[in-house]
């Protein structure tokens, strides 16, 4: 088991700055998620942990010991690749036992280990099959089993379930979380799916252009985003970010459809963030309001898109409320659930209301 630490790590590819002076520490036994859009540096970080890339500067430490100059084989980290990289000519069992053969584990213990992980991942019945005869979900499990069968210091997974369909992804991520907590082993996970990241991570790092914008528990990042960038990335539908201004003792947003008491708005606020689930609709009072632009019923929830002046505002309502397109509504917001951002995107702490 190991903690994984980056100290001021920088990595360039030609003119591209892939990882920019990055420092973090992943604790022993943690399920840690790197989340961000494509090219944010997620895969480069993984490759540096694996030892496939060398940082240009900075240090990488496992359990406090520097490993920057240690080759991938000696680092003993198990990896599940996005494309799974199963050997097509080997059966599921052959694939799973492969890392053990290479490491000269004795035969009896190989069989035992393979049986153990196979049971853990519910793939005992397909061990004899070739990858070509397995479904996407089964292949996924075999690839994960191949990583689990080893006894590494940490597991790395690069978007391992993105190829599965939505229903299977929901199941697999819960299963992964369960297996990881049973093993109690450090797991570093890369994904571009915010729902997945929030669902499985103990802690997560939100990346942008090779830098960490926020690091913390998913709940923390969701409830207290450090910047409008983080706020926008987490949540579906994403947070409404509205420009506002102080008028007549109120802070007005969305063409006046939303008004906040000025006393609760911190100095320097330019953008106000409101999560769709914290907005509610009411019959229009006189004066300002919004027009219903679109209603998307999801069954258990309904997404209502409103237009107010130039702004589009989304509200996530529970159940299946009757909302007519093009009707006028008033917007109500829970003032305690409002986020404030300065001109540079930095979050401002709300003054008590």
């Amino acid at each position, binding site marked *: 088991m190991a903690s994984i630490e980056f100290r001021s790590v920088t990595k360039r590819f030609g003119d591209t700055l892939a990882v920019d002076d990055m420092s973090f520490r992943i604790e022993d036994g943690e399920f840690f998620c790197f989340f961000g859009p*494509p090219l944010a540096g997620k895969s480069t970080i993984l490759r540096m942990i694996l030892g496939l890339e060398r940082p240009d500067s900075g240090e990488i430490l496992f359990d406090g010991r520097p490993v920057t100059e240690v080759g991938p084989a000696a680092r003993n980290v198990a990896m599940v690749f996005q494309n799974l990289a199963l050997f097509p000519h080997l059966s599921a069992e052959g694939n799973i036992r492969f890392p053990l053969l290479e490491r000269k584990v004795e035969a009896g213990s190989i069989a035992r280990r393979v049986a153990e992980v196979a049971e853990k991942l519910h793939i005992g019945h397909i061990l004899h099959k070739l990858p070509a005869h397995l479904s996407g979900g089964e292949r996924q499990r075999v690839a994960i089993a191949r990583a689990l069968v080893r006894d590494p210091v940490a597991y790395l997974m690069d978007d391992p379930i993105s190829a599965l369909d*939505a229903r299977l992804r929901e199941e697999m991520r*819960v299963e992964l979380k369960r297996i990881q907590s049973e093993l109690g082993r450090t797991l570093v996970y890369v994904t571009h799916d915010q729902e997945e990241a929030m669902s499985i991570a103990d802690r997560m790092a939100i990346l942008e252009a090779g830098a960490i914008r926020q690091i913390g528990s*998913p709940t923390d990042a969701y409830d207290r985003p450090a910047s409008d960038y983080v706020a926008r990335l*987490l*949540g579906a539908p994403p947070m409404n970010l509205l420009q506002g201004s102080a008028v007549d003792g109120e802070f007005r947003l969305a063409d006046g459809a939303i008004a906040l008491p000025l006393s609760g708005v911190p100095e320097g606020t330019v953008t106000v963030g409101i999560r769709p689930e914290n907005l509610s609709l009411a019959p229009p009072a006189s004066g300002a309001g919004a027009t219903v632009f679109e209603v998307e019923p*999801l*069954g258990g929830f309904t997404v209502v898109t409103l237009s107010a002046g130039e702004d589009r505002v989304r509200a996530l309502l529970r159940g*299946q409320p009757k909302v007519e397109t093009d009707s006028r509504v008033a917007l109500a917001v829970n003032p305690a659930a409002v986020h404030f951002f300065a001109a540079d995107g930095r979050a401002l702490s709300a003054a008590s209301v």
Partner: protein
Amino acid sequence: MTSIRLDHLTKKFGSFAALKTMDMEIRDGEFMALLGPSGCGKSTTMNIIAGMEGPSTGRVLFGDRDMSGVPMPKRGVGFVFQNYAIFTHMNVRQNLAYGLKVRGTPQPEINRRVTTIAEFLQLTQFLDQPSAKLSVNILQRLAIGRSAIVEPAIFLLDEPLSNVDAAFRAVMRTELKHLQRQFKQTMVYVTHDQLEAMTMADRIAVMDHGVLQQVGTPLEVYNNPANVFVARFIGSPGMNLVPATLVERDGQLRADLGAAGISAPLAPELAAAARTAGAGEVWYGFRPEELSVASGDAGLAAGVTFVERIGSRTVVHFDIAGEPAKGVFENDVALQEGSAARLAPGPDAVRLFDRQSGNAIGGSTHGLH
């Protein structure tokens, strides 16, 4: 604009029946989603509509016109492929112009229409760029524009969002829906993602194993699934289904869920339908979103196996009488992993399905058969 009628369609590949009797009407100007897991026959249905494959038996009608024997280029069908099938050796303009060019449309007319459609789809600035390196949302618009320029009566889209990043899919969904509203064309959209179908379609046709399971508006299939397959497939998470036996208690019909206890009385309408059907062994179904935590001895006994907070809501995984079930709650829900809980599905939220056939008992007037 045209309606589409599928009349007793079947399709066999060797001994494998990809499609077992498909009857469906897609209305003029409608956005219809063909939804189902892979291998359910949705793509086969679409290929038959496009004329890429012939049905083994049955007919396809556009309006009143029987399309049997009408070859694919003559059907007037716009097709957007899963990978968009952009001609990457041509630039954007050449891609857009392709359909007009092969029909021998005069060049000034081609120029005029390319300009118009490029403006409409906001592709003007990309017109002279090679199409190989465009981003996926531009490719999608280009694929739609290339089909739309020849003014097809019908648009068929084959899982166009399946190769798109999760984060971007929501944006693309919205864009696609607005395009359809603007074009006002009959659109058939194939997908395995129930969320895409729910958010975009006017109506959804749910398919499984080559059989049409249910056709209805998104809320119809969500609220009144015709059978257990639809109940599980629609919704995120899908409907919880626990095996139960119907029993009379104090003159009221209830469901006995074994170790989980006995349910609250069934709603009168559902109870009446169940009595009429003479139902005994059933699936007791309820939506994860319509579950509340009961106090004391009320409700059903359950164990909490996993708690998953996903931003705005918390999904709690339960074990109810040995069956997995889920509940969607607000984030302040006081349930801990490993603890016991009492659960009460909303009284109007309960659905029953016959354990033998899997079909809904009562309620659903929108089911097919």
